[in-house]
């Protein structure tokens, strides 16, 4: 719509009272997201914390433009989102990396589609492959990688495309606790080296407190916003500091009160 007002963008992401429902299997509709209003500033690390099946992936898909809202609207950089685009990178819960491409092929995919020359994009992709710790696996196909390595390919692929916004859907959900800690630490390091606006979905409260500037707590399905917490602890954060544990206790208790 050309009549949309052009104004200085204060928030990179704006969800204005968005709702989403799907046709239900037995007829009628199933409401999955209800009346969510959400804003994210430039370079803010926003965590969405919510119970299983509450509609987190659906919400990410709406912001990404992979699915369309049934009410309200989503703006990114002040423009209404209608379809997926390279300024909104998605790290999928199910990785969705291309099985017929090697690590290098996956990471350089975005720049290749944009027409960047081979030498230049290889150099660029190599930087992000190194950043996520996959040096030595450039020529491996996804079947040859572990679950955690595939997630890293998914992260490097999005970083290499330099999106303004990164949408990460439980990127570490499938990992064991040990790898998960390593990946959280790595993501913190990468994000601090190259800041981006991030929306990070998780069902792990420690992960949210460790990484985020702000935590948005979602209710059970249909997802609504229950509460927001600003986390202004200095990074890197200490998992066992009194402030960390206090926040963890508080957020866990409000989750429990609704279950």
């Amino acid at each position, binding site marked *: 719509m050309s009549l949309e007002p052009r104004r200085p963008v204060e928030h990179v992401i704006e969800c204005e009272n968005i709702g989403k429902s799907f046709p239900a299997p037995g007829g009628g509709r199933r409401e999955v997201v209800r009346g969510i209003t959400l804003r994210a500033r430039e370079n803010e690390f926003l965590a969405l914390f919510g119970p299983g099946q509450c509609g987190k992936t659906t919400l990410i898909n709406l912001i990404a433009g992979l699915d369309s809202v049934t009410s309200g609207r989503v703006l990114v950089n002040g423009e209404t989102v209608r379809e*997926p685009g*390279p300024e909104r990178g998605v790290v*999928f819960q199910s990785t969705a990396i*291309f099985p*017929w491409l090697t690590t290098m092929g996956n990471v350089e*995919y975005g720049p290749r589609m944009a027409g960047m020359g081979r030498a230049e994009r290889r150099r660029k992709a190599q930087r992000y492959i190194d950043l996520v710790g996959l040096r030595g696996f450039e020529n491996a196909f996804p*079947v040859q990688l572990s679950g955690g390595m595939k997630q890293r390919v998914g992260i490097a692929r999005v970083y290499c495309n330099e999106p303004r916004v990164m949408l990460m859907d439980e990127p570490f959900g499938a990992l064991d606790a040990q790898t998960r800690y390593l990946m959280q630490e790595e993501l913190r390091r990468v994000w601090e080296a190259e800041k981006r606006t991030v929306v990070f979905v998780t069902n792990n409260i420690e992960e949210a407190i460790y990484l985020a500037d702000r935590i948005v707590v979602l209710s059970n399905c249909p997802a609504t916003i229950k509460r927001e917490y600003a986390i202004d602890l200095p990074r890197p954060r200490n998992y066992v500091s009194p402030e960390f544990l206090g926040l963890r206790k508080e957020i866990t208790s409000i989750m429990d009160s609704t279950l």
Partner: protein
Amino acid sequence: MMKIRLSRGMIDVLSGAASIGCFLLLWLALTRHTGLGELIPGPDVVLAALFKGLFGKVGRHGILVHAGYSLARVLAGFAIGGAAGVVIGLSMGWSRFAEAVFQPLYRVVRPIPPIAWIPISIIWFGLGESAKVFLIFLASFANVTLNAWSGARDADRQLIGAARMLGANQRQIFLTIVLPSAVPQIFAGLQVAMSNSWATVLAAEMVRSSEGLGWMIVTGMSNNDIVQILSGIVAIGVVGFVLSVAMRKAEALLCRWNHGGR
């Protein structure tokens, strides 16, 4: 690692050779010591005829030349049929319009076995090579089309979404997502098409031709020369085996990503 793989390959080869050897021995024993010997010659006779045919002549050519004729017909028809099947199948899987146009035609033509076309092909193309190539085209076309079609149609929605979020346009999505995700299915179709083509060339040669392995068998029949029939059959088996091995090698090379890098 390398050593284990080699020795596993050796085991496969050895056990294959052993089972074929046992079969030949059984055949030999039965023809020597039972009434079977009056119906068919022993393997020693057939293999000797085969060797003689390799260097001498059966009809106007040696066995290798006959096999070469059959093979050339198969490869020509298979190349045309395979290429047409890939193009039409992929376009059906990619575009609703192409699917609507080709699907009814395809559904009608597909159930007709290629040999049913032999009379028409002779009327249309005469007795030369084009009639046989046409039949093999028909024999390979249908399976490849079906597999390319379903391979393209079933391309993972989420991978297409991922490509779009990385900035790919429609043409790029087709070339980098839909096409590679259809390759394993296309190859499965090509494999079936190859064995159909091989069967069809023999049928076509048996009906009308003056060379080829199919011709060897029918002339053997009309001359009541059972040794020639059997050596033709063995040659058919060997060529068919080589073709299927070649197809599998090509698939392993192109679909490396699908096989855990083996």
